[in-house]
């Protein structure tokens, strides 16, 4: 699907596969770095009056991220003596693999999608759940109490919040009538608000509850504040990552922010119309699509990080109660309402 018909590109499937793999491999660290730079270093510094990251290199501390990267690369690779070496080494790779697989189905234009799957959004949520295995592996293989407790918290949290995440998406799927992400974008592009079709119909208007649920659940899936108990530094030092240094830690960092980038892209695709821009069709949509999706996903990511930098951490029991007693019933109610409206209209 990558080939743009109007440009009459014809390349073999082997080359296509290699190009697609390279693009995805480049997007994950790039997305992670963009989020890390724009939000973690700049936005947080402004919001919390942190002067450090604003200083190195002159203009708004542009050199900070480069310096951090170089620092990670030259750190010693330490493995605890009691650790399970193979599992310890494989854990960061499992987390990044799960991030990598999520990106395969996100469409960035009418013809630009790495793998257009019929079950797109379901696939994305299924593979994103694989990262829990990596987290549990890391926590256990570290042979460290804090790491093990962090991993247990992460597993309990990720299982609890996967349900509201899936339930939030079901409303969109019912309205669009398809699981394919490309189909969901097209259905929003061709929709109409009370008969006015000029803007299409982004699902955030009809699925606002779904959008809110998705953002809260995604925040918990990403273990970001206020749901960052698995890495709570005042209780567990750094949770399951506590024994990881240098390059292996960088893998976890890239996995975390890369997944945040992926979830923001999925939220933008499901609720904000994805790559679609009103009045843009055909080849222009292919050319502008990636940029449009990027702007929309940065808007979603801004919301997620705004919450991250503003709210204090929940307690473990409050976190579980929120998922099971509030979010899941709300998600089920949202599905019921959407179903009634779908049948009635």
């Amino acid at each position: 699907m990558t080939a743009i018909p109007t440009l009459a590109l014809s390349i073999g499937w082997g080359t296509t596969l290699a190009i697609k793999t390279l693009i995805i491999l480049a997007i994950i660290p790039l997305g992670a770095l963009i989020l890390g730079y724009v939000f973690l270093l700049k936005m947080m510094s402004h919001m919390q009056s942190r002067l450090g990251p604003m200083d190195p290199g002159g203009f708004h501390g542009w050199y900070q991220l480069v310096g951090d990267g170089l620092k990670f690369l030259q750190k010693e690779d330490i493995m605890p003596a009691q650790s399970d070496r193979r599992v310890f080494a494989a854990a960061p790779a499992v987390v990044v693999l799960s991030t990598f697989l999520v990106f395969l189905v996100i469409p960035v234009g009418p013809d630009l999608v790495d793998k257009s799957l019929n079950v797109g959004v379901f696939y994305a949520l299924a593979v994103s759940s694989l990262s829990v295995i990596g987290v549990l592996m890391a926590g256990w293989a570290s042979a460290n109490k804090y790491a093990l407790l962090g991993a247990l918290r992460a597993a309990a949290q990720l299982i609890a919040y996967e349900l509201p995440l899936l339930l939030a998406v079901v409303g969109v799927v019912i309205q669009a009538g398809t699981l394919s992400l490309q189909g969901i974008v097209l259905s929003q592009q061709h929709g109409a608000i009370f008969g006015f079709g000029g803007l299409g119909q982004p699902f955030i208007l009809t699925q606002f509850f779904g959008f809110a649920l998705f953002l809260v659940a995604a925040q918990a899936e990403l273990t970001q504040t206020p749901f960052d108990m698995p890495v709570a530094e005042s209780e567990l030092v750094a949770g399951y990552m506590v024994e990881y240094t240098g390059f292996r830690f960088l893998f976890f960092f890239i996995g975390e922010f890369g997944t945040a980038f992926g979830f923001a892209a999925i939220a933008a695709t499901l609720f904000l119309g994805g790559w679609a821009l009103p009045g843009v069709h055909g080849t222009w949509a292919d050319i502008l699509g990636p940029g449009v999706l990027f702007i929309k996903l940065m808007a979603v990511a801004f919301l997620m990080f705004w919450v991250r930098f503003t709210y204090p951490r929940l307690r473990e029991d409050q976190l579980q109660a929120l998922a099971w007693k509030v979010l899941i019933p709300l998600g089920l109610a949202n599905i019921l309402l959407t179903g009634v409206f779908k049948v009635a209209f």
Partner: protein
Amino acid sequence: MWEQQVAFWVLAVAMAAAAIGVVRSRNIVHAALFLVVVLAGAAAQYILLAAEFVAWVQVLIYIGAVVVLFLFGIMLTRAPMHDDAGALDNDQRWGGLVVALFVLGVLIALLVNAFGGKKIHFSNALVSLGRTSHVGTDIFRVFVVPFEVVSMLLLAALVGAVVLARKD
């Protein structure tokens, strides 16, 4: 067709090796991780059979939830760091072998009787059979009674677990 054959055998050998790893491993966490490989192989086999939706259900439920729950349970209770062959071994291994061979025989007989000689022809019709909409229609139109019975069974198990866990 030969691509499917090659993929099947590669996956089958990897799955069998990992399955042996599950029972041979001297560390229960390693056994659970080997199980991930077996289940992922099963998901890949579903994709080979053009059952895309079932494949990702397999990933989400079995790898993303069931094995995670196994690991969670192991780590919450014991989390053994070192090989503990004694705790994982069982002196009834010969009895176990007999049961395993019996189950193998029953399964082979069942599969050969039910599907022996049948061949899957890959076509667009087969792909559309694996589509989510088709699976959904089948469950809620054709198999709605078994579906409801299974949900009642699961609900009963859930209520039972809550009753057993709550002492007050």
